[in-house]
């Protein structure tokens, strides 16, 4: 087992990793930018090294300084957390060349899954369903209709040069398809200078369901069930929960096995997540794979009792997965996570950095808080706006929601604006409470509010 690990990250995840290391009796090294001198991860690590000025590219993304910090402190392994260098294949390789263990998958696995079209092809090749679509941009209109029939209506026509949810039109059936195609091409030309479009099956009310995977270096891969992540705003997750109200045990097994198969096909080890889109008819499609620990991993930890970060460290040290040999993933109870960001929901979620003057966290049974914030802490403007991850667990979804309501109400953060009040509204929203949610939920809700 390692004697010392360097954490190449900051904020709440750096603290999370320190906790896992402390559980395992491993000494910790924190690295920090000048903006993070007063951070908790610096305070609570056994050693710390300043690695640069505030901008991420000069500090948390600065590979030579991070490797040098590991060298001068004698750290044997580096945990990259999420974001920053966590999915940087080059960094994983440099660690290896420097005789430092990178706590995660291999550089090759990061590279394969990092290229989204290679990832899709890899999964499709082993029979994992991917969102049906055209291989590339469409050549001519005649072909297009045939292709659209193959995919199955309704079809989404997307600008090849588009992105960020822009340049998309839906064709509901073969009759309207030619017109929609024409208009999509015209719009693409004027908006992006390129009329090329491609086709994708349109999922009207998809749910974003991801499967947590964990694998060791001895060939064993298991799945830890799903997380429902449909509550998003502009493709950023706000609320995650497990289990998903949409999954029956049979569907959970089917999706779990598909995810395991995908990971096993590339010999994956450490923690990873495969994201699927789940259609209303129960069909699911591979979207992408994240080859790192994720922000919302505590949701799975609460319903499975598995400490995923500790498993990552053990796996990197060459140990076997600590799950029982006969592991069939049953989820216990219900867990919900709310991401509390330093943003002002009343001003279109504008960032709200600054000093937190009062900080009183919630508590009680079934409440877990992962945060690096404290009274007197200055939320810096240079990094992401995540201030805290608030989780509740209950025997049922209703109990988890009730606990989350009071947890949000009793969580006092003053000095900055946060998304807590907005999340509380969502906890009281009838559609959310009903469990019949999908990725357009927040959009619909905000449109209703705006129209009111």
């Amino acid at each position, binding site marked *: 087992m390692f004697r010392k690990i360097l954490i190449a990250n900051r904020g709440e995840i750096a603290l999370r990793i320190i906790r896992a290391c402390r559980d395992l009796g491993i000494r910790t090294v924190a690295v920090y930018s*000048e903006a993070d001198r007063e951070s908790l991860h610096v305070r609570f690590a056994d*050693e710390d*090294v*300043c*690695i640069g000025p505030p901008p991420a590219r000069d500090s948390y993304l600065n590979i030579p*300084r991070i490797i*040098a*910090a590991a060298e*001068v402190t*004698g750290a044997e392994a580096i945990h990259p957390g999420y974001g920053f260098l966590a999915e940087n294949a080059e960094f994983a390789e440099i660690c290896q060349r420097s005789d430092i263990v990178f706590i995660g998958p291999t550089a090759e696995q990061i590279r394969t899954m990092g290229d989204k079209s290679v990832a899709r092809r890899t999964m499709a090749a082993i029979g994992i369903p991917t969102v049906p679509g055209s291989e590339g941009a469409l050549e001519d209109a005649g072909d297009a209709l045939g292709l659209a029939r193959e995919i199955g209506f309704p079809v989404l026509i997307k600008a090849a040069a588009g992105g960020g949810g822009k340049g998309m039109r839906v064709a509901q059936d073969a009759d309207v398809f030619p017109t929609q195609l024409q208009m999509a091409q015209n719009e693409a030309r004027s908006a992006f200078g390129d009329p090329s479009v491609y086709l994708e099956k349109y999922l009207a009310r998809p749910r974003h369901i991801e499967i947590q995977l964990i694998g060791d270096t001895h060939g064993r891969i298991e799945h830890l069930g799903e997380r429902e992540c449909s509550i998003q705003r502009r493709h950023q997750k706000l609320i995650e929960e497990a289990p998903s109200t949409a999954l029956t045990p049979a569907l959970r097994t089917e999706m779990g096995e598909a995810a395991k198969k995908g990971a096993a096909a590339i010999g994956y080890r450490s923690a990873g997540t495969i994201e699927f889109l789940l259609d209303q008819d129960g069909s699911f499609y591979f979207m992408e794979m994240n080859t790192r620990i994720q922000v919302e991993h505590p949701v799975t930890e609460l319903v499975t009792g598995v400490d995923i970060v500790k498993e990552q460290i053990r796996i990197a040290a060459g140990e076997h997965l600590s799950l029982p040999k006969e592991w069939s993933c049953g989820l216990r109870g219900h867990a919900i996570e709310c991401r509390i960001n330093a943003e002002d929901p009343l001003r279109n979620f504008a960032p709200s950095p600054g000093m937190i003057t009062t900080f009183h966290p919630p508590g009680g049974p079934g409440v877990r808080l992962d945060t690096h914030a404290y009274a007197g802490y200055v939320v810096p403007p240079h990094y992401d706006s995540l201030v805290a991850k608030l989780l509740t667990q209950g025997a049922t979804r209703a109990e988890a929601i009730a606990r989350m309501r009071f947890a949000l109400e009793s969580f006092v953060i003053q000095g900055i604006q946060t998304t807590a009040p907005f999340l509380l509204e969502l906890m009281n929203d009838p559609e959310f409470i009903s469990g019949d949610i999908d990725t357009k939920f927040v959009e619909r809700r905000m449109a209703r509010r705006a129209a009111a």
Partner: protein
Amino acid sequence: MAAGAGKQQPAARERTGRADAGADRTNGVVNSNAGGLIDLDFVRGLIAALDASGIDSLEINRGATRIRISKTPPPATAAATPPAPVHAAPMNNAVALPAPGPAPAAEPASPPRSNLTDVKSPMVGTFYRAPAPEAPPYVEVGSHIAKGQTLCILEAMKLMNELESEVDGIVREVLVENADPVEYGQVLFRIEPAGSQA
């Protein structure tokens, strides 16, 4: 760099308004927990005693931990031959030194110190005073240096980087010892630039 158990409690880390504001970060000294808690009250007591006396420096060895407190930084020659415990293991047993007593270190009214230029490390690595183990150091306290002159070597990832001076002047303080690990922004030298008050 600082170490866990030896770290000061939140109140002691507050910097606003204290005379030694930032001193524990910028004078390049390192707190280390070499296998046991460093008793902060004990250290504070030592600082107070030293401050109240005419003694310039004080050194105490306790097992694997060595504590040295001085009112003036160590001279160059002493730093060239580091004592054994410091290098028994990488970094872990590095010498611990909180900021020298509040009064001497950052007294703004003291003219010789206020015009010194800090030379800060631009990288993370290991500090070497000389081009080779047997060679004489690049500079000593009192050395006259020219802009562009090499002050030291900073090593990281098996690469040696020469750190060059950005000013002409005289080296007044050397704040780290040979083979010390250094972090980004750590003050290595203080230079009296040429043309400033002596």
